[in-house]
């Protein structure tokens, strides 16, 4: 049991660690006086001006295009991989046929596909969404397969002795029973999705968070470059936090 005091001191240590890092950053950059390494106060002032006071513009030019790609790519891949994962998890034979293909696809680093996707799909959103989806697909798929395979067969026997049909077995037995594993896959995939979103926006893009960082660098606006990196970190934390919230709600039965 963690007492309130223990938790408070835990939080204290974390805040102190963060403060120490910022202090070191400030100390090092103030001494170095380098164009490439601005001090934290400059960076945070830039975040305040460009990203918070001017939120409307940065939303429409950077946040929204990126989020749209990320959520579409992630969402499409999640739905597809969970559906296919259930089919493979429930059918040994189907699994034996397609598993080598899946492992090969998984072994390809998704960024390697970017030039191919640009040729095939052009430089619009579609190419970026497909790239994100390709990277997100394998972890969710493999976790879903594992989750479905590890379901206790007696849960299916129970469904059968109560005349529960096949469709309801999928929605009310397989999905909830495999949910812990599926969420493990979704969490891994969320980080991959953010990485691929940025990569896709570093090539042939005209908007998005990745593009903003690239542009800052090209324009020698190094304060903006650092601000963009920190904003991206915050976006990643927020997305993971949201996913964790959903997961806690869905898997409430495990901790209740």
């Amino acid at each position, binding site marked *: 049991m963690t007492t309130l005091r223990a938790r408070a001191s835990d939080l204290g240590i974390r805040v102190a660690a963060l403060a120490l890092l910022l202090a070191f950053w400030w100390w090092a950059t103030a001494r170095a006086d380098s164009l490439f390494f601005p001090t934290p106060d400059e960076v945070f002032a830039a975040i305040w001006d460009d990203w918070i006071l001017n939120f409307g513009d940065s939303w429409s030019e950077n946040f929204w295009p990126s989020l749209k790609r990320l959520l579409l790519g992630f969402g499409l891949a999640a739905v597809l991989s969970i559906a296919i994962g259930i089919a493979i998890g429930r059918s040994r034979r189907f699994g034996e046929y397609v598993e080598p293909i899946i492992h090969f696809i998984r072994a390809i680093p998704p960024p390697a596909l970017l030039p191919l996707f640009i040729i095939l799909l052009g430089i619009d959103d579609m190419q970026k969404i497909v790239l994100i989806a390709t990277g997100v697909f394998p972890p969710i798929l493999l976790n879903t397969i594992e989750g479905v395979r590890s379901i206790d067969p*007696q849960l299916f026997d129970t469904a*059968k002795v*109560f*005349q529960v049909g096949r469709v309801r077995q999928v929605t009310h037995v397989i999905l909830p029973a495999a949910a812990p594993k599926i969420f493990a896959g979704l969490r891994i995939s969320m980080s991959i999705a953010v990485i691929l979103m940025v990569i896709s926006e570093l090539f042939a893009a005209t908007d998005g968070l990745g593009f903003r960082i690239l542009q800052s660098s090209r324009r020698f606006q190094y304060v903006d470059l650092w601000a963009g990196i920190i904003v991206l970190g915050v976006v990643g934390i927020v997305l993971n936090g949201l996913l964790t919230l959903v997961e806690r709600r869905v898997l409430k*039965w495990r901790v209740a």
Partner: protein
Amino acid sequence: MTTEAPAEPVPPDLLLRASDLHHTYAIGLPEEHEALGGISFSVEQGEFVSIVGPSGCGKSTLMRCLSGLMTPTSGTVSMEGETVTSVPPDLTLVFQDYSRSLYPWLRVADNVEFPLKGSRLPKTERHERVAQALADVGLTGHETKYPRQLSGGMQQRVAIARALAYQPAMLLMDEPYASVDAQTRESLEDMLLDVWARRKKTVLFVTHDIDESVYLADRVLVLSKGPSQVIADLTVDIPRPRDQIETKATSRFVELRAEVARLIRDAGRAGA
């Protein structure tokens, strides 16, 4: 389920019949194993029949065949005169391992309601059945708990309540009390007898506990060691309602339990 004309006239009260059930696992493989060696018996409407046999005699295999979860190698099971090829709608099975049979993500009331949700029953009727079944097993007030928050005995009560709310004509129970402690077991036995008498169910109860088989049933079927066969069909002529202490002290109970014990011991020797 397919309809087939029964080969012989069926007595009007007959509910479930097993005819010459054989089952062999892994046919043609080195680990080939014959579990059922020709089992025949029948259960009438409203009867409480228990099946007792030495461990490893294929009791679970028998239950899986009777419930339609598994097709026997040969022989037929018929329910209300129709040959069983999948689980009949009028029958359900309570598993031995309640912890693997309840859905851990559903609260107690939702677990009990789960089989009813696919049916066309109106919501109010469903909720009535759930409340009634939970009251029958003495779990009123635990509706919103998750299974893992309950003790083993209470979890098995939830599984029984779920079967009761489903209102099958026939209830198969596969060693349902094997993994609960002795006192819980006695109270679960009496709870079952009480519900059986009030709700007019037909129960087929598998157990390896001789006392339990005699205490609960109208008839005890004794199985031999695998490949199992029915070696005795004893009528338990002990009046109801029964009482854990009084009934078990009667000379008739003592005689019957000794007879069953002797049959099982001899069956074990013959197979060894």
